[in-house]
């Protein structure tokens, strides 16, 4: 099977409910979205729909050395080669974190790039996080999205990983599993 187009009932049963940005977050609410963090119209063309598997736009791989240096396999971050993902009501959507977003730069001068709500247009999603494609074929997936990943249950995370695998991404690694080893 080359791809699994949409979320199935079985996926949705574990991933539900859809949540709005920061929903359930202990410190933030949707009002905390900054200017430039709420729109997605200008990014729709480059947001990759992972239901088709394949590589997202601006595809770049981390080296094994970078995985070690930035601890990407246990939940660390490396913006240069980071891809943001969310699972919305249909499928997984992916975008390179350093996709320019000049509008956001006015309120976050050090980060004039996209964020998770630029994928959803600040709409609802099941869950989100970051992913790193490694040259060794492994894909490190974490749930570091304060908008859509912060409050996710273990069951939700597990199903998110399963769904990504069902989209035919190979060697998907949950960084939280590695962290606890």
């Amino acid at each position, binding site marked *: 099977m080359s791809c699994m187009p949409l979320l199935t009932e079985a996926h949705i049963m574990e991933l539900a409910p859809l949540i709005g940005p920061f929903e359930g977050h202990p410190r933030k609410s949707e009002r905390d979205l900054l200017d430039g963090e709420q729109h997605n119209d200008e990014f729709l063309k480059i947001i990759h729909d992972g239901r088709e598997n394949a590589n997202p736009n601006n595809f770049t791989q981390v080296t094994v050395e970078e995985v070690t240096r930035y601890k990407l396999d246990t939940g660390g971050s490396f913006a240069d080669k980071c891809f943001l993902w969310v699972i919305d009501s249909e499928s997984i959507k992916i975008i390179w974190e350093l996709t320019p977003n000049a509008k956001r730069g*006015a309120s976050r001068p050090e980060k004039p790039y996209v964020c998770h709500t630029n994928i959803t247009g600040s709409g609802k999603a099941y869950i989100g996080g970051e992913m790193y494609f490694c040259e060794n074929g492994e894909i490190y997936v974490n749930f570091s999205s304060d908008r859509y990943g912060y409050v996710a249950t273990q069951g939700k995370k597990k199903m998110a990983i399963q769904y990504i695998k069902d989209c035919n991404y190979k060697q998907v690694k949950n960084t939280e599993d590695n962290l606890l080893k």
Partner: protein
Amino acid sequence: MKSSPVNVFLLDDEFPIIEDFRKNGIYNGAINSENLYHLAINSEWNHLLDLQQLIKDVVTSQACKEGLINLVGFTSPLLAFPEIEKGLQPDVVIYDWEYFNSGLGPDSKNWLLEILNKTNAFVFVYSKRRDEILQFVNSKELNVFAPRFQLFLKSSKDHSLFTSEEFILQYILGCASNSGKIKLQGIEVEFTANDYLAKASDILYLDRIFGRNYILEEIKKVDFSINTASVEKIFNDSNEFLLFNEAKGILITTTYPLKDSLSPLTEIKFIDVVKKFSISKLEETLERGISFI
């Protein structure tokens, strides 16, 4: 800080026209700060009141009075290029995107690219039609210059602790001096570069970490003065902390789902995270739930 004055170019074709200036050809080349100030205090600026105020704030700032800022206006980028060729290099450019005789896009984009290529200036792209020009600004050619420009909506007061013009003001003053009066939501605040915030725009970290209302309330308590002591007070008043596994070099939030599996964890106050690591590390941890040292 620069030893020579900070050259600030203000490119905008909507400066008020006064007959005397027009007759004397003032608009045909570099408009000096004295003339810009004259326009700012004697003319109607209609929808550009915030730009008018920015000019007043820059020219009357202590840094400008001390000769540390040289503000120069041009009614078109095409008038600025000869000055650049002659050696007047801007450090900061406030770049209006729309010009009467140009469309919304290609000319403005090409001129912006020319400025970025010919100078090392930081450019504030300034537009009243910001959302319509995103397609030009978020382009591959401009992406390589991303660290050197910022896009602002003229007179925007939304979603940020600083209005557009307040942000530009603090940036200019910060280039000229380590301290000075900046504005937050119209309130004058004395900013001094300190152990925690290297420049005034770093106040945005506080805004994002604690929220706007908290910061505006705290600024009143510290007598509208941002320095090492007052930043410490702002942090300490919040009484918030992260959890730290020193052996593994892991910082997590108090609500991180796997915290029970990451023992031993010790509490580390926000201010100590900033002292020991950095304010960006604190923010990263709050955003991602976890970060590594």
